[in-house]
Structure formats: structure tokens, C-alpha cells
């Protein structure tokens, strides 16, 4: 590439319209979030009536062991779900894109998408029945974080596969073939050539499945056991009598922590890049 900007819609239009669209999109995504952050400071126990400013819900939250342990459990399950989904999803996507012929391929492609199609109620219930009968035969797995993870992974695998497959399909196979012709081993081709080209897809798939797991209620409800209540389950069970703003407080804490992390990370990345640019410039001048 010769460093020329892509000539779409002309540069100025592209930049201005693009920024506006992104801003509008983020406004849509963050509108309810702003509302819920504001109401975390609401002094009234009723979520929709404003009763003055308070921090008491944050104080309550600190002593809410049920919520806090639910949060850590959710985080743990979501992390392992996302990692496993991306690995398995990558395998599955690879299979569907690269291997056009093996026994049971049609069935495989059907099964990969099927968890998307099954209503979550059915996925949860059928997995529960399966796991219980396995437990009767073998004595494990006991219901808990592990079984919730299995359910989430089933769903996560389907999502991750679709995302990664969409990227792999458009890859130019000649690049990989060229690497292979130059004597690279298959795993080298994969890690040095293919992986960097599908990096965005892997990151997207990881984030999607992490989020999916962090927010799931139906599957977790079916697959949880004593002492393994995830945060969404805690929140849903409390909703019967109406939520109080301490739930908003949890959400606010998550948002703030992640925001700080994102800002710090992008600042560090930007600084590293400036540094590199300076060094490159210096090196060029020196030569």
C-alpha cells in the first residue's frame, strides 16, 4: 500500500459523516446506560422517582456478599467461556472453510449453527436433562460453575464460529499457499500468516462470547447448582419484588472500571506508537 487514504466519498465527507454516525450510534448504545448511572445515586428506593442524591447504595453494595460473589463467578465463567469459544470456534470455522470434504460435513455445519436456532429455554432444559443423566451414570459433573460454563460454551461456540468463519472465507488462500511453498510448516503458516490476518475476528468473537456469557440468564438458571448463583441470576431473582438502585451501583462500578482501563490502554498504545514513530524518524535521519 502506498499510504493513500481509501477514496470513499471524499476525505472530508468521509471523516465528518463517519464521526457523526459513530457518535449517533454510541449515543443510542449509551443512552440507557447514562440513565442507569444517574439512578444509582437516587435516594428513593423506587427506581423511577428521583429522591435526591445519595451514595448509600454503594455502601450497601459493599456488604452485599451475594451480589459480589455472583459477580466474581460471572466474571470467571465469562472469561473461560470466551477463551474456549474462540479456540473451538476457530477450529470449527477452519473446518468449514478449509475442509470441503469429510464424512459428516453437512451434519457438522448444521450442528454448529443449531444452538443459535434452539430457543434458549430448550437448550437449557435439554442440556440439564443430559447432564443429570450423565451424572447418574458417572457421578459427575456436579451442577455448578462447570455446568454453567458448558452451556455457555455451547452457545459461544456457535457465535464465535459464525464470526470467525465470515473472516476466514474472505482470506486469500494464495498467501497461505505461498508461505507453504516457501517451506513453512502448517502450524507456522497458521500462527505467522493466518492468525494475524484474522486477529480482528478473534478479538470480536472473544468480546461477543464474553458478553454473551456475562449477561446470560436462561441457561444459567437451568444449569446452576447450590452456591453457584451468577450475577444475572441474583438480579433476576430480586426483580420480582422490584430492583433497588444498588443494582445500578454494580453496573456503574463495572462501567467506570472498564472505562478507566480502556482509556489507559489506548493512551499507552498511542504513546508507544508515537515513540516508535519518533525512533523510526530518528533512524531514517541517521541513515
Amino acid at each position, binding site marked *: *500500500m502506498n499510504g493513500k487514504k481509501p477514496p470513499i466519498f471524499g476525505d472530508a465527507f468521509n471523516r465528518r459523516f*463517519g464521526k457523526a454516525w459513530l457518535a449517533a450510534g454510541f449515543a443510542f448504545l449509551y443512552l440507557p446506560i447514562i440513565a442507569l448511572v444517574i439512578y444509582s445515586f437516587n435516594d428513593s428506593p423506587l427506581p423511577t422517582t428521583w429522591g435526591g442524591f445519595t451514595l448509600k447504595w454503594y455502601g450497601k453494595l459493599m456488604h452485599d456478599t451475594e451480589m459480589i460473589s455472583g459477580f466474581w463467578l460471572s466474571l470467571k465463567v465469562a472469561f473461560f467461556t470466551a477463551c474456549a469459544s474462540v479456540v473451538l470456534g476457530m477450529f470449527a470455522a477452519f473446518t468449514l472453510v478449509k475442509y*470441503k470434504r469429510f464424512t459428516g460435513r453437512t451434519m457438522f455445519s448444521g450442528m454448529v449453527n*443449531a444452538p443459535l436456532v434452539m430457543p434458549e429455554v430448550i437448550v437449557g432444559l435439554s442440556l440439564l436433562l443430559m447432564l443429570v443423566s450423565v451424572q447418574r451414570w458417572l457421578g459427575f459433573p456436579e451442577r455448578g460453575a462447570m455446568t454453567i460454563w458448558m452451556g455457555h460454551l455451547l452457545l459461544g461456540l456457535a*457465535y464465535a464460529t459464525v464470526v470467525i468463519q465470515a473472516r476466514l472465507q*474472505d482470506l486469500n488462500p494464495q498467501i497461505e499457499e505461498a508461505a507453504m511453498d516457501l517451506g513453512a510448516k502448517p502450524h507456522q503458516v497458521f500462527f505467522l500468516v493466518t492468525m494475524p490476518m484474522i486477529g480482528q475476528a478473534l478479538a470480536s468473537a472473544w468480546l461477543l462470547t464474553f458478553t454473551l456469557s456475562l449477561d446470560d440468564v436462561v441457561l444459567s438458571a437451568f444449569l446452576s447448582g447450590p452456591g453457584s448463583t451468577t450475577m444475572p441470576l441474583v438480579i433476576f431473582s430480586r426483580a420480582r419484588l422490584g430492583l433497588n438502585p444498588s443494582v445500578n451501583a454494580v453496573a456503574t462500578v463495572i462501567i467506570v472500571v472498564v472505562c478507566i482501563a480502556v482509556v489507559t490502554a489506548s493512551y499507552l498504545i498511542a504513546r508507544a506508537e508515537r515513540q516508535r514513530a519518533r525512533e523510526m524518524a530518528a533512524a531514517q535521519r541517521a541513515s
Partner: protein
Amino acid sequence: MSPQAVLTQLRNSKLLSGRSAVIGVPYVWLLVFFLLPFLIVLKISVSEMETVHFKDLLTYKDGLLQLTLKFSNYEFIAEDPLYFKVYLASLKYAAATTLFCLLIGYPFSYFMARAKPSIQPALLMMVMLPFWTSFLLRVYAWKGLLGENGWVANLLEWLHVDHLLLALGVIPALGKFMNSPFSLVLGMTYTYLPFMILPLYANLAKMDLRLLEAAADLGATPWTAFWKVTVPLSKAGIIAGSMLVFIPCVGEFVIPELLGGPETLMIGRVLWDEFFSNNDWPMASSVAVVMILLIIVPLAIFNKYQAEAQEARS
């Protein structure tokens, strides 16, 4: 072929060790965690239900092994218009949601993929972050925003959008936005938007920009280049995003319960009622099986033809 020759051939095939693991691991996982449970559902759908248990399909009577399958549920689905009507309604809402997600999400992902590379990861995180708060909270927040004197409700009224929505028949009355088809589709669009944006972004981010330059060099206007080059190149992303939005939306249960109106009955709720209100697991399983087959079989066939076509080309 002699065993020796087979071995040599195996050794020569480029991705042997990788290949069997790559296919095998997800395959086995799906067999255990999808196919096995699905067979259970299939079995329940042809069983007779007692209070909470199911009669054995295989019975041993008078020295004969008998297999009793009950297909009346499937007949009932075909006869009773409720299931069909509700299924159509679910398809309709899912299609509307997919369309809106695409309309908002495509330009969004496009511009995200064209943003400075250093801020792209941050943008990606920012798209997902709202969904790390609890689902219920976001729903309640939307209830507040769309309810009487909510910010969004006031804005829509000020813009007189409610007249349009009422004319379309998606809200019950002027100024009443909650618990209507409108709030349902809005809620689903909001919830599923990242599932459209992320695959599209992953696809658009690595697009070969030289093709666009080539188009421009050949005298294409930006608009033509966009429609003739960018959109076709991102076809895989569009298909993936639409799949991730449309398919789960059809069976969605929680959002219609919380944001939908009384008339927006979707198939997820019907399944729930069959399972629990009616305590009729065979019926519910039958509905689920029909639903899955209606979507999965065409999808698998499509995939098969696509694979064959690609192979023929190369």
C-alpha cells in the same frame, strides 16, 4: 492400496495431524453437548407424558418388544393455527430487528474499521461495554426512557415521530411507546446491535483497500465503488451478522416478556407455556424440533451447495 502407501500418503498430506484435531475437537464437543441433548428433546417429543415422567418408548409385552411413538403432537402443530401465526409473527419481528441492526450497524462498523488503528480496540470495547451491565437494568432503563415523560418519549413526541408510528400501527396511542411492537423491536435492535457490528467490523477491517483504489483509478465514483466493491466484498460479514441477529431473535423469550406488548406473542413464550403452564413437555419439544428443522435444514443444505460450488471453482 497397500497400508504402506496409505501411510506415505497420510504423511504427505499437508495438514494431517492438525486436520484431524481441528475437525475432531469441535465435532466431538458438538456431538456430546448438542446432538445428545437434541436427541433427548426428539425423544420427548414422541413420548407420552405422565405426571412428570415419560413412558418408555420401548416396552416388552407378551414376548414382543414394542416401540410406541406418538406423533399426534406434530399433527396438532399442523392443525392448530396458533403455532403458525405466532411463528410468522416471530419471523416478522426478527426480520424487522435484523433490518434495523443492519441499517445502523453497517455504516457504524464501516466507519469504525476506517478509524485510526490505534483507537479501534477502544472503539470495539466501547461497543460491548453497555452489555456488561445487567440486561434487566438496561430494560428498565429503556422503560424509563420510553415511559411517560421519558427523555426518548419526549424527543419522539417533539419530532412528531409518534404520528408516523401510530399510522404504522406499531404503537397503541399517541405518546404511548412502551409495551408495543415498537418498543419490542427497539429493545431487540438495541440488544442485538453488537452481534451485527462485531462480525461486520471483523470483516471490513481487513478489506483489501487496493481494490477500492483500483476502482477509483478506473473512474468509479465513491458511491459506485461502495456499492460495487465494498458491499459485495463484505457479503460474508453481512450474512454472518444477519444470522447472529435474526436466528436468536426468532426464539427470543426474555425481551418480549419485558418490553413487548400483550399482542406481541412470540414463539419463545408459546414454548414456555407448553412446557410449564400446560406441563406438556412432549408438545413443547415437538414445537422446538419443528422450529429447529425449519431453519437448520435449509441452512445446512445452503452450506453444502456453497462448499461444493467453491470447490468446483478452485
